[in-house]
């Protein structure tokens, strides 16, 4: 039992010895190739390092902004394409691409160039929508055209008609509020005539119509110095047929925002 145990042990020892001796003898690798050796680096210039170049957000709706941010080390010059041009080593810039656009930052020094690109994805509406209708609060001109109505006159008359009084009363309320919002704007009242009277007489008649309109508004409390008058006589008709339906449209006071 002992002898058998001893012989197994001896075999194991022998095998282990043999194995060890065998590994040592076969395993000597050839020396690594010279290039792979950690040789001392020669003094060569390094390319610039782009620490980061990002676009946030990287996806926008058309008309929104995305902010490009970047940080670059060791560059002599840095530029971004798409018209942004030369930039500083570290900075940010808002862009408003109208469609999906890639921006490439190029950093250069004597060691070479490094580039990095980001893409701003733009979600365009499937069809081109008309510009949104400005709300009345948008600007003076659209408020005037939306809220102020023309008035019409009888032939060869400059008196404000009964039906025009109600319109001018509404106009005066609207004007007071509009002028309150836009203290620097003025309104021009154009006086117009139909084609039948002489052009010369109609110049005077159009002036009367504009002035009568202005006087009426002023009496209702609209500030006179915000209202200008001008007569076009029969020189600027809105309608050129020779019948009453057309003539009645041309005998008017028309309001124009300045």
């Amino acid at each position, binding site marked *: 039992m002992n002898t058998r145990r001893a012989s197994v042990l001896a075999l194991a020892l022998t095998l282990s010895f043999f194995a060890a001796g065998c590994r040592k003898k076969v395993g000597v690798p050839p020396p690594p190739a010279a290039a792979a050796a950690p040789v001392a680096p020669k003094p060569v210039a390094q390319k610039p390092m782009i620490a980061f170049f990002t676009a946030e957000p990287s996806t926008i709706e058309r008309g929104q902004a995305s902010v490009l941010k970047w940080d670059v080390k060791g560059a002599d010059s840095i530029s971004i394409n798409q018209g942004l041009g030369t930039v500083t080593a570290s900075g940010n810039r808002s862009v408003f691409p109208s469609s999906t656009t890639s921006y490439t930052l190029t950093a250069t020094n004597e060691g070479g160039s490094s580039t990095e690109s980001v893409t701003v994805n733009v979600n365009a509406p499937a069809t081109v929508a008309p510009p949104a209708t400005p709300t009345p609060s948008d600007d003076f001109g659209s408020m005037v055209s939306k809220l102020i109505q023309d008035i019409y006159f009888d*032939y*060869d008359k400059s008196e404000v008609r009964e039906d025009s009084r109600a319109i001018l009363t509404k106009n005066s309320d609207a004007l007071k509020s509009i002028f309150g919002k836009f203290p620097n704007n003025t309104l021009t009242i154009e006086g117009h005539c*139909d*084609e*039948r*009277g*002489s*052009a*010369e*007489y109609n*110049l*005077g*008649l159009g*002036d*009367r119509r*504009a*002035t009568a309109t202005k006087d009426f508004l002023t009496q209702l409390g609209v500030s006179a110095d915000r209202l200008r*008058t*001008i*007569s*076009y*006589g029969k*020189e600027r008709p809105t309608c050129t047929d*020779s019948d009453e339906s057309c003539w009645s449209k041309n005998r008017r006071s028309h309001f124009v925002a300045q």
Partner: protein
Amino acid sequence: MKNFILIFVFTLAASVGYGQQGSDIVGRIVGGQKAVIAIPDFRGAGRAANFVSTFNETLFRDIEQAGVFKMAPKSMFPLNVPQRPEDFRKPLQYDPNNRTRAPWLLDWSEPPVSSDYLAFGYTAEQENQMVLFGWLFNVRQPEVSGAQLIGKIYHGSLDEEGARKVAHEFATDILRQFGVESLAGSKIYFVSNRSGSKEIWMMDYDGSNQKQFTFYKNLITMPNVSPDGTRLAFTSFAGGGPQIVVHSLETGRKIPFYNQRASMNATAAFTPDGKQIIYSSTASGWAQLYRANADGSKLERLTNTRSIEVEPKINPKTGNEILFVSGRGGPQQVYKMNIDGTDVTRLTTGEGEASNPSWNPQGSHMAFAWTRGYSPGNWNIFIMDVATREYVQLTQGAGRNENPTWAPDGRHMVFSSNRGGSMQLWSMLADGTQLRQLTSAGVNEKPVWTK
């Protein structure tokens, strides 16, 4: 035979009040019976032959347009046309059917030509110039020696322009023989939109040579010319509302004019001496008439009503009376007042609407536009004897006819009419005949005929 020369002699007993006695007024203005003139085609020698047809057209048109002659029909002319006085040979026995003999006076005075006068001659090339040898004969005379009224040499450049020039000069001399001022050389200023906006344009009296005069690219209208022809006043929207602007017609440049503070200063007219301008202004609220120096200074208000008053026109002969348009009595009518604003009287009857008064150069008659007898907007041209208020209607409802102004000869007028579809300028004799369309491009209106 020379009664027709008494064109401007107004001898008719004045009839009081209103009345339409047209033929009398027109007869006194354009003359009654007309003399007959024969103008055979001239021939050209050398290179002058290249331009002789332009010469012939121009001469014929100038004489015909003057309206003082009846033109003898060319188809009746004898075959043998004289080119020089020497060509006439008195036959022993006049035989109208002998086609081989030399020209004679009776060829022209006897039927079928039946002319009173004969203009003849020829053009030639001489030292690179156009030369016209022109004669006017009274062919009613028995002998050549007593027939000559004009025998003259005219020089021009050897081209179309030169041909027109010598023709105009010869025509002017012919007309002067009969006390008539030729229109050759006279100009018409007018408003046209053919550049895209209304601007002042100019042209020769016969419609040739149309040129743009103002370049404001804005609304420019209602021109008027000073009597000496050196200045043009008009109503301009270039600065916003209607204001008066004056230009020199010699340099083309703007001349300072002070516009009083008003939403409208318009329809300016010059006094005969050119020293003052009368115009309409809304400085007081309503369009009223003001008188000022030619630069706009020294303002004086002439009318004081709560109505629209425009278009002052000062009597070119006396300088004392102003015609103007006013709504003081209702629909617009033509009124007259003294130069200081006194003595206002209405000239038109109050019927319809009346506008655009224009004095004839003699200061006796006005041409104007009136809707009398028609619905508003249907304007016709009328003439009124300002002293008697007799009037006559010259156009008869063919389109809208407006803004008549007299030619310097006091016998023609130019006006705007849309009878052909669009508003164009037409000239006519003051009896309504000899209608001639002068413009065709764009819309043309508000003519002023000047020397």
